[in-house]
Structures are given as C-alpha cells and as structure tokens.
C-alpha cells in the first residue's frame, strides 16, 4: 500500500495529515500489518488533550495490544465512531476510512520534525532487515 505523500509519519507508525491547525491521525499500513486482524480500538473522547509522543489510545488484535502515540500535541475534536463497529476498517483502509481522531493542534509547525513518506518507507525497510537478520 502506498504511503500518501502529504502525510507525515512517526517511528511508532502513526500518520498525521495537517490542514491549517487541524490534523487527522491514524496508524500506518505497516502497523496494521504487524498487528494482524484488528478487533478493538480505544480512543479518547472529544475534548481530551493529547501530547506529542504520549499514548492516547490502544488498538488490539486477538493476541496483542498496541499503544497509539500522538504525533503532535493538541485537543481532540472528533473521533472515528465507525471503528467501534467495524474495527476491520483499520486493516482494509488504514490511511483513509480508518482515521482515528481529528485534532486541533497547539503547534502545527512541530510536525516538520516527523518523517515524510520516502523517509518512513526507508525506515520500515531498514527495520525489516534488522528482524530478518
């Protein structure tokens, strides 16, 4: 699956798309693939504050739980309610329909420090080499 060029990516495998001071956050295709069939997602309520680098929720498969880390700081303005009934969306469309939360950023400029798509693809390719070695 292609990694959208307009997104930025974290080392913990989240993506963020920023428009003005509004951002949409999700987990990457690589993350959903590593996790396997997603069965449950736990997300913060609108109004909650999230802090860059800190966990704001979890995503679960049958036998694993993964924390989701905030790529940037801000206030949650909307969460993707569809995922409660259809967690499999995360496996099917991680970069689109399976967005997790929308956030009003405190400092939109800070996301410049995150990886762009080519850097992230290089990063996961490198990680893949490590594990198979």
């Amino acid at each position, binding site marked *: 699956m292609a990694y959208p060029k307009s997104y930025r990516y974290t080392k913990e495998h989240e993506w963020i798309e920023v428009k003005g001071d509004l951002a949409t956050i999700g987990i990457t295709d690589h993350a959903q693939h590593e996790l396997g069939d997603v069965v*449950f997602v736990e997300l913060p309520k609108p109004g909650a504050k999230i802090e860059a680098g800190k966990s704001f929720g979890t995503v679960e498969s*049958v036998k694993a739980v993964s924390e989701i880390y905030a790529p940037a700081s801000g206030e949650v303005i909307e969460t993707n309610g569809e995922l409660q009934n259809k967690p499999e969306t995360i496996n099917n469309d991680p970069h689109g329909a399976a967005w997790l939360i929308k956030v009003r950023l405190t400092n939109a400029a800070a996301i410049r420090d995150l990886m762009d798509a080519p850097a992230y693809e290089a990063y996961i390719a490198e990680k893949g080499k490590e594990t198979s070695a």
Partner: protein
Amino acid sequence: MNDNIKKAKRHVNQNEGLIFEKSSPGKRAFELPPLDVPKAEPSNALGAHHRREGVEGFPEVSEIEVIRHFTRLSTWNHAIDLGMYPLGSCTMKYNPRVNEFVARLEGIATEHPYQPQELSQGCLKILRLLEKCLLEITGMDAITLQPAAGAQGELTGLLLIRAYLQKQGNPRKRVLIPDSAHGTNPATAVIAGYEVENIKSNEHGQMDIENLQKLVTEDVAALMITNPSTLGIYEQNLPEIAQILHAKGALLYMDGANMNALAGITRPGDLGADVMHLNLHKTFSTPHGGGGPGAGPVAMKKVLERFRPVPILVEKEGGRLALEPVRPDSIGRVKAFSSNFGVLVRALAYILAYGPGVRQATEDAVLNANYIRRHLEGVYDLPYSLPSMHEVVFSDALQKKNGVNTMDIAKRLIDYGFHPYTTAFPLIVPGALMIEPTESESREECDLFIGAMKAIADEAARQPEIVKTAPHTTRVRRLDEVGAARKPVLRWKPAAQRSTAQTSGARD
C-alpha cells in the same frame, strides 16, 4: 489416516447442544425432601418488591440428560488422564485419585471455617503439617497458606516486601523483572504499587550480572526471578544476585512456578531467595480442573514473617493449634476464610505419598525433558544451549523456512494424539516450543511424542499445507478468534432475543 500417527485413532463422539436448548418446562433433575416446617409465604415474609418469580431462562431437564450432557462435553477435552500434556511452565503431572478421595471425606469437606477452633484441630493439623513440609522443601523460615493461586501468592509476596521496606521507612519505587518472566509478574508488581523495570537477559538467557549491578539502586524494592528460568535453564548466579540486591537493601523474590525442577535437589532458601510462592497445582499435583482452583502458598525468610497475612496459624501450649485473626504488622487478609483448604489437603496427600522420595519425581521430570531434548535437537532449533532442567524450549526457526510456525506444529500435534506444548512463550524466543513432560510420562509415551514431533518436522518440510491447516481430526477445526473478539457472544439467549449475527453460519 497417516501411519506415523501411532498414539491415536479416530472415534465417534456425540454431538450435544447447549443445555438451554434441551430445556422443556416441567422436566426436572432434582427433588428435595418434603418441607418439615410450615411453608412461609414469600410475599409476606419478604415483601412483594423483594420477591422474584423464578429465574428466567434457567434450564429444565432430567437427570439422565444432565449426565449425558456433561459426559458428552467431557469427551471433547484432552486430559492428563488420556495422555501426555506437555505444556511448558504448567507442570501437567498425574493428579492422584486418593487426593480427591480424602478431600471429600466427611469431617474434611464438611467443615465450616467459622466453627470453633477446638472443633477444627484436624483441619489445623493438616495445615500445620503442610506448612512444615513446604518449609523443609523450600528451605525457608515461615510460610502462609492463604493465597488462592500463584498470582495471588505473587501479590502476597510483594506486599510482604513492601511492608518490610515500609517498616524501615521507604517502600521504594521499582521492581525489576527479567524479559523472560511470566506476564503475571509485571501485572502483580503494579497492583502492589510498584513501577516495573524490564531487564534484558544475556545471550545465554540468563541474568546479566553486570547489568543488574548497575540497575539495583536504593529505589529498587525487589527483583522477581523465575528459577529455573522460563527457558528451563537453572539460574547459576542466584546467590550472587541475592548479594547484589541485599547490598542495596532490596529483596529477592523467586517465582516458584518451576519448583518441579528443584524439589528435593536444592532449596531456594539456601540459594538466597527471600520470598517465593509455590503453585500447588503444578509441583504438588492438585488438579488443574480446566483452569483452577489452585493454591499459592508463600514461603519466606524470618525478616518477613511478622508481615504475613492474617489469620496466622500458631501453636499454643499443649500442642493445640489456633488461627489468630489479628497481628499489628500484617499486610491484612488476601482472601476470605483462611485458604483454599481443599486444595491444600490434596497437596499434603501428594507429599505424604512421596515423602523424601519427592526427589525421585524431580529426577524423573528432568530425565524426561533431557531425553526429549536429545532426540529432538537438530530436528527443531534449540536457541539456548545451556543444560535443560525440567523443560526444554525449541524454536520454529527451521520450520519457518517452509512457512510453518509453532502454532501450526502445535495444532498438528493434536492429530497425533497429544496436547500441544506451550506456544510462543517465553517471549524472548521468537516462535517458541516450550515442552515440559513432567515425571508422569513413561519412556514409551516420551518415545511416541518424539516420534510425533519428528513426523511433523518431516511433514513441515515435505507437505507443509497439512501442518498449516491442522488439526484435521478434531470435532471443530481452527476457530474464528477474530470474529469472537470483534462481536463477542458471551452468553446464550433464547432465539427470539438473538440477533442475526449470532446465528448466522452456526450449525451443529
């Protein structure tokens, strides 16, 4: 059927629905003697708003249907009584039947925990003798039999450590736990109010002493260590580890899950452990019963004795025994009504059957594990090569090349008539196969197991599909765990109340 499958043959077993689906109003399986006092009218005695008109949905069936229902269900289980159950870390040994008999005796099973202690001396003597035996086996100074299971034993042990440190002015912050540990260790530490620091094992799967020296500070309350480790390897440096901890005022907690490798050979108390729990349902043969009940006594050094949970068993003048409910320094009570007494009775019956010969059981357990290791080494990858004690951990590295993983091999083992080994644990071995035969297996049974494992390795190389789609002979095949977790159906409901999601595709 495959000629390599020597242990098992297919046989018919009965279909059986849920008990609720057999229910029909008016059938009954139980009758009470007639009431010999005037009947109280519930509405008058209770008041109308406290009264209930029967339990909606409760089954109504006859006695023969109850017997057949549960007997049929039972035939769908594998069990130690049917054959080897080599679940690593679980110590699935023979559960002697005499233990069941004595636990059900009139005067044992019938006793009430609040009856006067002068009418409970038999129960208290059983507790006392078990305490003495376990202290002798562990080399510790004091013990509590109260915890209901291993996990509660762990918690009790950590609370003892916490109380001891608190008494000295500072309960400290952190508990160190090796990455090879069982998941309960960190979960327990958190409930005891500690932060968990996971520490990496060295390349032999052992505690890295130099690293430990750096990690143990005045902030560390304890190290929780399993010995032998979950790799089945004896931790050689336990006395040194204890010294490092003690030098900084911290204590050593030993998880006794693997005591079946040590009983009668060496004693954790002599090795420097300050506190440990025992899983009576592992080492001391009380039945697992499909997942409990267990019991998790905690043995400790003198310094922790005064903090034990109440009630405390004490010997009074003239040898009379008593349970004392109040102790000023006690961590409190961890469970109502003293203990899982019925489980303790069974454990004592087991110990009495062996006496000092418990050593022979340990030797045979280690012999079986090494025999299996010898025959499967090379057939399966052995990631850590130090000597094995009571269990051996292989990995699926060789079979992975053909796309076959430890879970596939485990499932295929079912077709060969065996319960699988423990899969994917310990976490430090990717694709682990953790095999613990216990002393209860004959050479013949071990040979059959070895034969099955070799045959599966061969299949994995030549026809991996048959392994990847196993089991092929069970009444249900691989189950949809993803569906079960996404849309949980956790109880039966009458058809009218059921959603379509619950019934679709389900047929018996």
